[in-house]
């Protein structure tokens, strides 16, 4: 089966699984987990180089690959059944939550379907003179203060970050090996030493370096349309 789906439309791996399972067109309690695992893994393979494919999708993929391997072995039936049931329950649960989310937001809402009214008086009802500060206000205020502090930390934390020079060296290393064909820009990202923290800076460094090289007349850049792969090719080749 082939699906022309975009990962960015999903709320996470469970959401994707749920959507795939609905394509089986059976009651959610009766879906084939093996078929679902195959569809999911197939989908992930096709989207592997999509930058929005975050770690949680890969964690689910490895779990499904594991489950699939177990399903193909006949001797570990009980253990597999438990895993299957657990996954199926999670899907049923998440599906219920999605249904309820829709139902809640279909309820009449204040400001759309009704408004609460009060008359304007010169007095207000209150037993004590107290500031109108709620627990939510307090937490949000503290959250605001710490967010500012985190921004500062990112600026200081330079040792973790990659520079445009790093990006240049990745591009040059690659083009020295192959200077005749079009290559995906982000395949130049180093495979090692990338974690969640510095990945963004690596992408930025590589992107800036590619613009710089194009400017220098060293490489050509091509992207067919929005969100398509950015391709690069050496001009000397």
């Amino acid at each position, binding site marked *: 089966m082939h699906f022309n789906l975009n990962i960015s439309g999903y*709320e*996470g791996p469970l*959401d994707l699984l749920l959507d795939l399972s609905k394509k089986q067109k059976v009651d959610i309690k009766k879906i084939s987990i093996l078929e679902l695992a195959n569809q999911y893994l197939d989908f992930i393979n096709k989207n592997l180089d999509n930058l929005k494919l975050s770690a949680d999708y890969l964690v689910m993929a490895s779990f499904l690959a594991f489950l699939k391997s177990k399903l193909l072995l006949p001797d570990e039936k009980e253990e597999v059944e438990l895993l299957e049931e657990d996954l199926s329950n999670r899907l049923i649960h*998440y599906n219920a939550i999605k249904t309820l989310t829709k139902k809640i937001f279909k309820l009449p809402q*204040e400001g759309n379907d009704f*408004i*609460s*009214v009060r008359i304007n008086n010169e007095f207000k009802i209150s037993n004590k003179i107290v500031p109108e500060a709620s627990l*939510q206000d307090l937490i949000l205020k503290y*959250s605001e203060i710490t967010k500012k502090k985190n921004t500062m930390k990112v600026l200081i934390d330079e040792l973790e970050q990659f520079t445009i020079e790093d990006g240049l060296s990745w591009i040059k290393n690659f083009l020295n090996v192959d200077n005749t064909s079009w290559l995906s820009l982000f395949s130049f990202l180093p495979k090692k030493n990338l974690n969640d923290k510095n990945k963004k800076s690596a992408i930025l460094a590589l992107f800036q370096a590619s613009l710089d090289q194009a400017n220098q007349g060293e490489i050509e850049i091509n992207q067919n349309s929005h969100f398509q792969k950015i391709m690069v090719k050496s001009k000397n080749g």
Partner: protein
Amino acid sequence: MDEKQAKNLVEALIFSAEEPLSIESIRKILSSYGKFNLEKLIDGLENDYKSRGINLHSIEKKNYYFRTSEDLGVFLNIQTKKTRNLSQAAMETLAIISYHQPVTRAEIEKIRGKPVFRGTLDNLLSLKWIKPAGRRETPGRPVTWVTDLEFLKHFGLSSIKDLPKVDELESIIM
């Protein structure tokens, strides 16, 4: 003060309060003027306003406020405050909190299969739709989240029990 006057006072108090007015606050004020059956007075008011353009509503039979009748929504063409657009993540998080409360963030993440970002909770907090409610007495003592009064008020619910239901969820959590 006679009963009719007491009822009028309760009515005026509820109409004048900024927020849904708690029955305790009303009782406290009323107690200075005599002994009254407050529940009966409120029932009377509820009944008086049943088929008017304005209805008396309660949250959990504890907090009272007046609002326009739902039947008039289409005609009122309300433009005062438009509900702002919430992300799908925020809406699902809200749904999970409302059905599973009190619930920890880790539990929400497990149900959604995805991390809950701080901005999502901040958003719901600033709407006063959720609030923290003590900690779960498990390792790490995680904070639990519950819905707040404004959530019920916004969706015109008089109790958390009035939330829509689906069979699948009942069979899983009950």
